[in-house]
């Protein structure tokens, strides 16, 4: 019974972390059409910053704040040279940036980095909750998710969010109407990066261990699939997508014990199905399950 509760709590913790990533991608790609294919880098930066800070004695909240700050700063640095590029070039440069980050984490030997990763990352309030810790941590993650969801919703429904959507629809026209498109795109990317940094921090303190091979490019595409399946430009859709993809990944993990699939094919088959899902949705239901909601302004 306890193990079932823990299993569900574990699942929901991952749903929360990926939900955060989904919303952060949604702000960038769903609302601003910034094709960020390097999401995993910002997640990794958040995880590592939080891990390094707390391992050297800082409290969890300082780690979380540091993760958001540094990931946001990293987003700003990526924005400067890339956001004046056309969207397809942005996609390529963000993939490259993500790989550079991973390779730095892999090959840099100072500060405790390297292929062995960082272990014994403190788990916040672990002593307080003991056996019911998975449930408690799930609550922490979901509190963060809901906080970020509220922040995102407020931003999206504001004049600021409206300009992000306008940039998504037509950059040239938005600029011609007097909006500094580059500045808005930069803010969008920084915002999304902060949020991915928070997700990274929550991930690191949950697993209590991070290593470079946890941050492969596939993770980025997993988040993209969640957003596309759940509903582009709908933050609830991003969370739904995270739930569906997590449920799928976990059910196939159980399924493989019941059905006879050759060992090597198991993991690959899962990715094949996820890839298929992405393609099918893009072709037949590009708005995703929930899709974007129409903004109705009540006539004054």
């Amino acid at each position, binding site marked *: 019974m306890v193990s079932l509760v823990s299993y569900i709590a574990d699942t929901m913790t991952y749903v929360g972390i990926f939900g955060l990533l989904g919303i952060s991608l949604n702000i960038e790609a769903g609302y601003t059409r910034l094709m960020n294919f390097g999401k995993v880098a910002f997640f990794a930066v958040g995880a590592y910053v939080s891990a390094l800070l707390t391992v050297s004695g800082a409290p969890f909240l300082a780690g979380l704040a540091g993760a958001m700050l540094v990931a946001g700063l990293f987003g700003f640095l990526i924005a400067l040279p890339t956001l004046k590029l056309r969207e397809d070039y942005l996609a390529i440069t963000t993939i490259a940036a993500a790989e550079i980050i991973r390779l730095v984490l892999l090959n840099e030997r100072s500060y405790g980095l390297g292929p062995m990763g960082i272990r014994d990352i403190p788990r916040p309030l672990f002593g307080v909750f003991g056996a019911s810790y998975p449930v408690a941590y799930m609550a922490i993650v979901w509190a963060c998710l809901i906080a970020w969801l509220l922040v995102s919703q407020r931003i999206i429904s504001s*004049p600021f969010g409206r300009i992000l959507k306008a940039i998504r629809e*037509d950059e040239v026209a938005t600029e*011609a*109407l007097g909006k500094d498109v580059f500045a808005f795109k930069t803010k969008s990317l920084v915002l999304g990066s902060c949020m991915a940094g928070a997700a990274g921090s929550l991930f690191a303190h949950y697993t209590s261990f991070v290593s470079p091979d946890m941050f492969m490019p596939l993770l980025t595409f997993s988040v993209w699939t969640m957003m596309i399946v759940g509903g582009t430009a709908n933050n609830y859709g991003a969370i739904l997508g995270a739930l569906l993809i997590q449920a799928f990944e976990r059910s196939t993990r159980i399924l493989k014990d019941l059905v006879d699939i050759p060992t090597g094919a198991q993991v690959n088959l899962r990715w094949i199905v996820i890839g298929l899902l992405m393609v099918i949705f893009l072709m037949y239901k590009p708005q995703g399950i929930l899709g974007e909601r129409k903004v*109705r302004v009540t006539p004054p």
Partner: protein
Amino acid sequence: MSLLRVEAVSKSFGGLKALDHVSLETPASTIVGLIGPNGSGKTTLVNVVTGQYPADGGNIFFNGEDITGLQPHEIAHKRLVRSFQITRVFPKMTVLENMLVAPPHQTGEALVSVFARRRRIMSQEKELARRALDLLRFLEIAHLCDEYAANLSGGQQKLLELGRSLMCNPLMILLDEPVAGVNPTLARKIFEKIVELKEGGMAFLVIEHNVDIVMSFCESIYVLSKGEMVAKGDPSQIQNDRRVIDAYLGG
């Protein structure tokens, strides 16, 4: 006193001289026509004036200020806005949302204000929505305010683009073929709206191919040909100008 003054502006693309020392002046509260054969540089001139392309040479003054080399968004803030030859509405946003993107200096454009000054944003939104609806009524598309812009007809999109420009509080609008592909009845109606706005004090520079419309609505007309300004004058002068006929018929 002219509102917009373009002085000897040049622009080349590789070896092609798209604009060769082009000059033009438009006073406030007038409709000025800009005509010329395809490829004569009309849209390029609009792109240079509004900062989409940097000029290779020459100066552009608007409302007493030198605006040469400013970014498009900075020029819009000087209250000089443009429309596009191929309509550029925001398709997956409603008509009202399209209108509300445009107003300059909205409090809610700053991220901090989104959280710190909620009340002010709400009252501003209400006021802007009221103004947007008034304009949409004037343009006779108010009934479509909750419709996605993508679902509007070509002519309605042209009207929406005009309305969106008006939300920028412009002193002058550069209209790049405002009635291209619009049926003749609606085309006349759009121009009647433009005349009404002109009478309210606004200036227009209009690129238009329809000779009837240009002759009946524009007070003065400039003619571009192969990147050079070959003629200017009132409609009757232009109609009888040998160089204009040559430009169009390839003399």
